[in-house]
């Protein structure tokens, strides 16, 4: 996994696209160019810091339509729109759908790099959150059914004795499984476990079909 950010550029105008790739390359980014939305969708997205520089008017599906398609798939890749002539209606629609910025051609370097910078920052944040969520989920998935029951009891604020009674096992067994559960989840204290549970709850709410 490379640390150098990858900038996807979708623009049907070849000279514009090539020029943008050159500029971004010179600015130290890794770049990929696409002539239309379909071309972009056909390529797998590598797991690395990235953002999408997207032309509004394209042959076939438009930039806005690509943005909507990505969102539908749960792809969090930040989008910066770049358009020949932007009208108020489409810029409003783009921003509302979560675009980082809506830029007009010809675009000056500083404005472009600034927008790219912001897009990457958002990407970083999103990716970090995603990584953590995945980590948490994998740790939680490692729990045995009994450990999960103990986890629910602890998070609910029950004492070991109460948990043992509810589960119909010895208090000593509860203690043992609690220690194993804490180790698997990487929680040092009951407080840490509580925070973890909160975040899990958030994840569950967001990814309920998968959880």
């Amino acid at each position, binding site marked *: 996994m490379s640390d150098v950010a990858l900038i996807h550029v979708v623009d049907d105008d070849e000279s514009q696209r090539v*020029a943008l790739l050159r500029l971004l390359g010179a600015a130290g980014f890794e770049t990929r160019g696409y002539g239309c939305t379909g071309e972009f969708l056909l390529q797998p997205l590598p797991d690395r810091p990235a953002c999408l520089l997207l032309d509004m008017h394209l042959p076939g599906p438009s930039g806005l339509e690509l943005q909507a398609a990505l969102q539908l798939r749960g792809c969090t890749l930040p989008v910066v729109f770049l358009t*020949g002539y932007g009208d108020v209606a489409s810029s*409003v629609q783009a921003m509302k759908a979560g675009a980082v910025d809506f830029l007009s051609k010809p675009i000056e370097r500083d404005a472009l790099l600034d927008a790219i910078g912001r897009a990457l920052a958002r990407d970083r944040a999103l990716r970090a959150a995603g990584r953590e969520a995945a980590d948490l989920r994998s740790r939680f998935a490692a729990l045995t059914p009994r450990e999960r029951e103990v986890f629910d009891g602890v998070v609910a604020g029950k004492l070991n004795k109460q948990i043992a009674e509810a589960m119909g096992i010895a208090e000593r067994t509860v203690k043992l499984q609690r220690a194993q559960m804490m180790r698997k989840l990487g929680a040092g204290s009951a407080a840490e476990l509580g925070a973890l549970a909160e975040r899990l709850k958030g994840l569950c709410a967001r990814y309920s079909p998968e959880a």
Partner: protein
Amino acid sequence: MPRFVCFLRSLRCARRLLGLLGCALLLASAGPATATEEPRILVLFGYQRALPATIKVEQGLDETIAAGTDVSIEFLDSARFSGEAYVRAVTRFLRDKYAQRPPQVIVAGGEDALTFLLSHREALFPHAPIVHFGIRRSMLASLAPLPADVVGIPIEFDAVRTIDLALRLSPRAKRLVLVTGAAPWDRAWEARLRKEVTRFAGRVTPEFLAGLPTDELLERLRALDRDSIVFTSGYFRDGNGDDFIPVAAGAAMARAASVPVFAPSDTTMGTGIVGGYSPSYVVMGREVGRSVNALLDGVAPQALALPAVLPTTLNLDWNQIRRWRLDRDEIPEDAVIHFREPSFLEAHRDEAILFAVVMLLQSGLIVWLLVERRRRRVAEQAEQKQRFALVHASRVSVAGELTGSIAHEINQPLGAILSNTDAAELILGAGAGTDTEAESWPDPARHRELRAILADIRRDDLRASEVIRRLRALLGKQRTESTPLDLVEVAGEVVALLRVEARRRRMTLSLDSAVQHAIILGDRIQIQQVMIILVINAMDAIDAMDAGAADRRLVVMTLEARARGYRITVTDHGTGIAPEHLEQVFESFFSTKPDGMGLGLSIARTLVNTHHGRIWAENAAAGGARFQVELPALGGARGESRFNKEGASA
């Protein structure tokens, strides 16, 4: 018109026929009377045959005397012939002559005739009643009382009324000149005038020219001042002892005088005399005729209700009125005006009415034509104005579309150039600490030069894009004039406007509206433009087919209500649109026509978008293309309201 003349002619014929019929009836009724007892009368004039008064009286008599009456006329001619021997001879002649056919009624004309008849009555016609006429009342009064069977209507020359009238007709007159003669009658008349004229003393100075020799008199009349008028009744004898007929004397005076001459006699008309009040000799003849008829019918002479004096009438000569510029306003209503040429209208009344009617009709026609012409001109101007507005709007749209497209096309390379420049600058190490970095290059001077070049490219690029930006802003300001308008009405106008074009191309253009009204908010001209573009486009599509069948040369525009507003559909029966072109038809510069600019549909799309509507093309199942436009209805202008809502939430 000929029919009208025919009508007049037939009317005249009918009148003539009626007249003939009347005559026939009269003749039929007169027949038996002649067979039994033929009434006979004798008219004895005191003067001679040629006197105008005599002729007029005869005329009046002729008019009234019952048909079948035997009328004999004799003249004493006493002015020229006199003496006992003459009177004896005449008496014998009359007695002998009329012994065979004695008259039943005698008419005496003038005082000489009456006195003659009265003195020889026993010898001549002792039993016949006498009707006299033309004798002045004063004269009658001086005679011995008349027998009961001698009747008549006295006359009176009305000097006062005539003079009064003369003064009114010539208000500036200061002098009244009265001319009389030397005969006994003349002297008696003069005496009477002198008495009567005193009543005008305050208004005018009277001056008598009495009994002068004719030459001298005429000389005096020629020399009269302009402020004079003359009154005379002529004379029987002048200062030299020469005899005159009064009318002739008056005529000579009228010819000589430098001022208007008035006379109380109706026989003077046409002699140069202005006119005056006089007993009418024709009326006199009629009165006598009536009296004679009554006597012949057996009415007793005493039973005849005769007027005390013959009424006078006013006769005026229009030529004299004009010649002396007399005051026409003072002419009394009942005046008999002689010699006034009937005015054109009076003379040709029927023709004048016909002419007036024709003129009126013609004027009406002209006015109507003018009004019609003006209305047509106004309509033509309105149509021309509309066409001009459309052409102008079309030009603006083409310019806008063209500029927009060019701006878009140029903007792309400008963007690429800028990005390339930026990239090159980055590669050259532009930015902070450039100088130190430049030093590391093999040739620092060249490096600096390259950086300057890039800076120039960048600046010019930005300048060019600024121009484009401003141009676009300018075109963006093209405001549309949004007013409520009825699509049905607008479509009707467009179809009317393009019918001529359709006929030229031998096509049928029809409008089929499923709604009565389709009110939207928009710019009338722009909506018309969209419709015109679509219809012309459809016509072009049909023309592109070689020799299309007649039933395919048809363009139909339909209008229907949809959930979102109204839909306009223009369907042709051409070859349709190639599937690969369906997407492209609305793009600028895309055209399948050899001479097409490729802007029409692109303009249509821009205009429809401005109205928050949408436009699309498809191929009809029956072949041919179908272009559809949907525009939001007024009040349900969803495009706009949705935009506003989003704008607020953003």
